[in-house]
């Protein structure tokens, strides 16, 4: 890639991100409602696990109530950064011929989608701040702030986004072969819910389940960034986690490249 091309891609990303940012800030009430919807899930989990911790004398699985609160407050931000292009939406894109325009453009549509969602996260983060303030006042999370953790979190949360975006993008490719991918997406979503740390911190699962989570991408998209910020990992563990994220991103990127070439050969444009 020439320097000029690289520069063009950076400008393309900036433009894509700006579009995503402006779209979500324009419909801020809609975005805010979705965020409030996101809020219910962690508040439910936090209430359940706080009740369990209280019943056990204040601690469960190495978390006290303040640490559980910290986990689930940061959860809400990580959840925002985990949103990516829904694999089910590929079916609509293909059926309606929506990708025809993108295919005729000189930049791969992956960059378009990836940058759009990046920009939208900035808008969501702005709207998330008042929610975080309310959650903090209500649940009193205990977080030990360290500059290293905050800096590593800034990397880990974007790394998590990249891995999850790729997981969903690769799954979306299934729609080029079948229109009945919904059941499979449902199964993967359920596995993700359990093995990412979204349903419950992975330390609270049986040991064998926690071990499995290490070898799946979901932990590195969700629980890892949370643990980085709330200070449950040392420097070595943080570095290893970022390494896992990089390895997953590279592997999934390669897989996407291979699958995309085959998928696009099968594709016949209709309409639009």
């Amino acid at each position, binding site marked *: 890639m020439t320097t000029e091309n690289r520069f063009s891609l950076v400008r393309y990303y900036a433009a894509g991100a700006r579009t995503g940012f402006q779209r979500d800030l324009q419909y801020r009430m809609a975005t805010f*409602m979705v965020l409030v*919807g996101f809020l*219910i899930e962690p508040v439910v989990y936090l*209430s359940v696990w706080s009740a369990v911790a209280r019943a056990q004398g204040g601690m*469960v699985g190495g978390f006290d109530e303040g640490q559980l609160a910290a986990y689930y407050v940061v959860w809400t931000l990580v959840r925002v950064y985990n949103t990516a292009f829904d694999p089910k939406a590929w079916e609509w894109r293909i059926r309606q011929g929506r990708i025809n325009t993108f295919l005729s453009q000189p930049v791969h549509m992956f960059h378009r989608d990836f940058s759009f969602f990046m920009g939208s996260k900035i808008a969501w983060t702005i709207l998330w701040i008042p929610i975080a303030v309310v959650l903090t006042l209500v649940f009193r999370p205990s977080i030990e702030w360290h500059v290293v953790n905050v800096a590593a979190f800034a990397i880990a949360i974007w790394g998590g986004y990249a891995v999850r975006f790729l997981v969903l993008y690769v799954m979306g490719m299934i729609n080029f072969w079948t229109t009945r991918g919904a059941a499979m997406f449902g199964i993967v979503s359920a596995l993700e819910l359990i093995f990412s740390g979204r*349903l419950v911190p992975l330390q609270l699962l049986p040991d064998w389940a926690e071990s499995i989570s290490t070898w799946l991408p979901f932990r590195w998209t969700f629980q890892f960034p949370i643990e980085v910020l709330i200070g449950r990992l040392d420097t070595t563990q943080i570095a290893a986690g970022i390494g896992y994220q990089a390895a997953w991103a590279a592997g999934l990127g390669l897989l996407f490249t291979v699958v995309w070439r085959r998928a696009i050969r099968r594709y016949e444009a209709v309409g639009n």
Partner: protein
Amino acid sequence: MSRPIGPGRLAYLHIRLGVQQELQYRANFWVQVVNSAIALGVGIVAIAVVYLHTDSLAGWSPDELVTVLGVHLMVGGFLRAFVFPNMYKLMSDVEEGTLDYTLTRPADSQLLVSVREVELWSLIDVVSGAGVLVWAVSRLGDQVGVIHYLAFLVALICGSVILYCLWIVAATLAFKVVRVDNVMQMLSGIYDAGRWPVGVYPFWLRGGLTYLVPLAFAITVPAETISGRIDWPWLLVAVGFTVVAFVVARLVWLWGIRNYSGASA
């Protein structure tokens, strides 16, 4: 001139038509079977993980908590089969101006907008929820008697009516602000809170889930009834609340259509 048909028959005819329409897409049955199995599996896993760490959650034993899951699945299936599709259709009709065709028909408009659509396969959730409930109740033994089964039926009907009322009030807002799909989405998110008994939640949230989005009456009370834990006065409160909810929903609907000016050509 022929006699107008009654509301019961009108509802029956619409629902039968909706069922026939759904039967055309039988492959969706299998997709829904998988989705129901996933919902059930995740619910069971969540309960199992909680009881790895404690013997009792806010006074509920594992089997009692499974009744909450069963009721949550059943009522959720009812909402997805009969309530959500009709409310989304109502919102899109308001947006596109096609609600006029319904409002000008010689029948009760609230009844008509409530029975036009059916998502038949969502009833699989009702079946899986009922299965879980039977399994859990069979393990509870003597603490559940005939009186509890009868009371459960009353509580379940009340809960379903309360949630229908809540959703139609939310959908009626479409007459004023047109795009309320985000509100509906938010309510669907809140519905997930019903997977656990409201006693688990902090005081302020318990209040909200009892009187604002009344999952306490819709899910916890039926589950308490079928698991033999019910404080009987709460069943009476649930019946009273249902009557109030129905009257309020009716008044809001009438206010909505009085203020609706139509948008079609």
